[in-house]
């Protein structure tokens, strides 16, 4: 192992990290280097510095500290029974790589995760040390996301929160049964408790302290998690149930869905499939509807046979087609909640409609200037001089709005 060059290690340990979907660098508190005269800043919204041909944003240096691991999770490239090449960065190497990359403006910061070697505390301590050196020794003000290890001690989590912008713990799979089957050594109960503790700590530190009247710094970017989709038979309805449980219980900023992807040296416990990318996409859309459009999970999946989201059309359109009795919606009169339910209209457009309504009435062509495609919206709205007539209830409406079927070419 010591014979590996830095480049070889980077190649192995980035490869080992790529199945983690999250690369977000958003949500951090505003920070810059004007005072410290060092480097680094975060200004709320993240920046994607590059994109790989898999369409995923590259915002952070996403690596593992090591891919040696005592766990044997079937879906994971780093499981202990896998024959992948193993490597391990030194603390110093990660610090240097992060700073060197940051100074070239390749990245927003570091997303550090790790296989668990020896004990959870030992691994977590090294990760925290990397964050500490970046923040304290190098006054690095960029983004730091640490993947915390559920079993790590309270003090280490406390320190991690002090240096990191975001902490995350992966729930791995949507159901406890799935975790038990595919990741037999992981304890879903422990993962839940760790997320609960993180939420309590984030809330506790958000209160100003009695002595200093100032908020303590603790993971200002909140916590997130990821689950793998398609590695077992869990339905979308069950997945979204888990998501709404996670959002409501642990105040997660994001739940990431990662389409199960084949890995090198795969385990026989897993299906040999191409990653269900469209399913992943629909889950993100449904997740969005729950968080920003006032949809409840049950509404989204109610009309879906077998609890699976429609792959052909997006979940908002699917809901509208199944609930045509609430349409058409009058854009000049309907409340915000109803405007948000119109297919093809996003929350920004809704805000603009409400702004315009204060001063004048909208015609169909006005709405057309606000949204991307009026064709999708037209059957669902009433505007000045426009009524969809029978088209809202037309039997072939779905056919007219669904994208033309085409051969999916994922490979």
């Amino acid at each position, binding site marked *: 192992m010591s014979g590996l060059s830095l*480049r070889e290690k*980077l*190649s*192995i340990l*980035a*490869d080992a*990290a*790529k199945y983690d979907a999250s690369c977000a660098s958003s949500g951090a508190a505003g920070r810059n*280097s*004007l005072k*410290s*005269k*060092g*480097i680094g*800043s975060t*200004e709320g919204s993240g*920046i994607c*510095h*590059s*994109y*790989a*041909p*898999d*369409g*995923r*944003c*590259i915002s952070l240096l996403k690596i593992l500290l090591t891919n040696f691991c005592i766990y*044997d999770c079937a879906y994971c490239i780093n499981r*202990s*029974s896998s*024959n992948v090449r193993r490597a391990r960065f030194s603390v110093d190497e990660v610090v240097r*790589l992060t700073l060197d*990359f940051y*100074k*070239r*403006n*390749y990245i927003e910061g570091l997303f550090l995760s790790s296989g668990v070697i020896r004990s959870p505390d030992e691994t977590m301590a090294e990760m925290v040390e990397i964050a500490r050196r970046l923040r304290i020794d190098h006054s690095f003000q960029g983004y730091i996301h640490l993947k915390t290890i559920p079993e790590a001690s309270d003090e280490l989590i406390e320190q991690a929160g002090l240096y990191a912008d975001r902490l995350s713990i992966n729930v791995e799979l949507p159901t406890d049964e799935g975790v038990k089957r595919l990741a037999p050594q992981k304890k879903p109960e422990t993962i839940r*408790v760790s997320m*609960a503790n993180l939420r309590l700590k984030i809330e506790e530190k958000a209160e100003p302290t009695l002595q200093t009247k100032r908020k303590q710094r603790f993971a200002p970017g909140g916590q997130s998690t990821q689950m793998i989709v398609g590695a077992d038979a869990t339905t979308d309805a069950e997945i979204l149930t888990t998501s*709404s*449980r996670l*959002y*409501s*219980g642990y105040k997660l900023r994001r739940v990431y869905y990662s389409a199960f*992807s*084949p890995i090198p*040296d*795969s385990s026989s416990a897993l299906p040999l499939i*191409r990653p269900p*990318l469209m399913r992943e996409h629909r889950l993100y859309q449904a997740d969005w509807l729950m*968080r920003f459009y006032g949809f409840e999970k049950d509404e989204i999946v109610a009309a879906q046979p077998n609890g699976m989201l429609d792959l052909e059309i997006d979940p908002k359109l699917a809901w509208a087609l199944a609930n045509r009795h609430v349409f058409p919606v009058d854009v000049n009169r309907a409340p915000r909640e109803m405007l948000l339910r119109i297919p093809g209209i996003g929350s920004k457009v809704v805000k*603009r409609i409400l702004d*315009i309504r204060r*001063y*004048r009435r909208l015609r169909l062509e*006005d*709405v057309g*200037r*606000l949204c991307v495609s009026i064709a999708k919206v037209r059957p669902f709205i009433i505007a000045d001089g426009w009524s969809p007539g029978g088209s809202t209830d037309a039997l072939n409406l779905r056919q007219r709005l669904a994208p033309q079927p085409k051969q999916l070419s994922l*490979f």
Partner: protein
Amino acid sequence: MVSYSVTLAGETDFAGWRDAARRLVLNDVQPQDIVWQTQASADLFGAGGVPLPELPDGKILNVPREFVDIAEGVICHRDPARFALLYRLLWRMRDEPHLLKIASDPDVAVLREMAKSVRRDIHKMRAFVRFVRIGEGEDERYVAWFEPEHYIVERNAPFFIRRFTGMRWTIFTPHASADWDGEKLSIGPGATRSDVPREDTSNELWRTYFSSIFNPARLKVKAMQAEMPKKYWRNLPEASLIPDLIKGADAAARKMLETMPTMPAPHHAKIQERVWKKASEEEVPEVASNLAELRAQADGCRRCPLWRDATQTVFGEGPENAKIVFVGEQPGDQEDLAGRPFVGPAGRVFDEVIEQAGIDREKLYVTNAVKHFKFVPRGKRRLHQKPNAGEVSACRWWIDNELKMIRPELVVAMGATAAQSLLGKAVPITRMRGQTVTREDGLKVFLTIHPSFILRIREKEEARAERGRFLKDMQAVAKLAA
């Protein structure tokens, strides 16, 4: 007929535009009577026109702050028509003060589109500038070549200062350059691509990272290009890898799918033996002989489906030889997170009142009739749900065993659920509160309300009165146990 020609000092001369626009609009000069140009085009085509009118005395011009913010961005747009568009909007706003709110207005729509395009360009510059390090030690500097779509270098420079304060850097573009020497910013003339070195020692590591982080099994070339259009590629050191990565993706993914699972790695057996065998031996005993063992058993309780959505079992807490056991309904949001009973808002009321009644919480055992939190998620919150009879009865197994081990002198049932669990039937609490019922097995059960009931009363006076009645009940409990 054109009467005025305005020549701005440069492409981003907002101050110049603002001064001219103010004079013109206050002198009622119509948009179609003005030609806007920059110094560069004036040099080519000549200035012409008549001098700008003076500001009329005593007249002032008010515009929404939002317009100034948008205009400062839009002035950086490369479209030569932007100056006239801004003036037209300024002109129209005299009669239509809310014009900017009408996003469907064609002029406003163009303005918003321009503002968006500039914002996007600014964002992409922050993303795709690539610095190259030149010089060592004292002479270390970072330089970059970037080709923005609009005239955004000056507007964007403060961002790079905030981020790279401790570095000395220069960003060159065809239109202008920005230089930061660690103390101050200088805006200089444009440059050409060949003026800026391109090779950096870190490029190779970055390229290694780029190709390793790519997952060939999920090729989405369109998604990549939507966010990273090809026009940026020639200045990105990693972009030259893209065609080969795409070409090889299919084969790489196929190989992963087709490779048969191999034998476990050699170290796997050792890890299994050393780490996991030991762990699996620390099993929970099947019959609990004390509270700690009972608690460990309850951790994995699957007697009803409530565990599925809750975080954890919230077991009772307190000394094994407690004289009084308090039983509530079920853990709430806070209890579920903390894993301890009575730590939420109702728990705080409980603590205050029993302290007033002279009961020492340290000596009590507190627990719940149902040990998992039952709720429905509503957006970012969890709404408490009353446990049903089936759940109460499934969980009675635990409370029975807790009581068997503690053998208290008195049990206090707080609320209907606790009473139902302890007495095996529904009891009208409001009518029977303050009374003690003796069970067939001789256990004395004191009935009272659940402290969360006090919190749910909206009327302040009524809540205070209820709290008083609860205190009276607790004083009775203190007496019974004395």
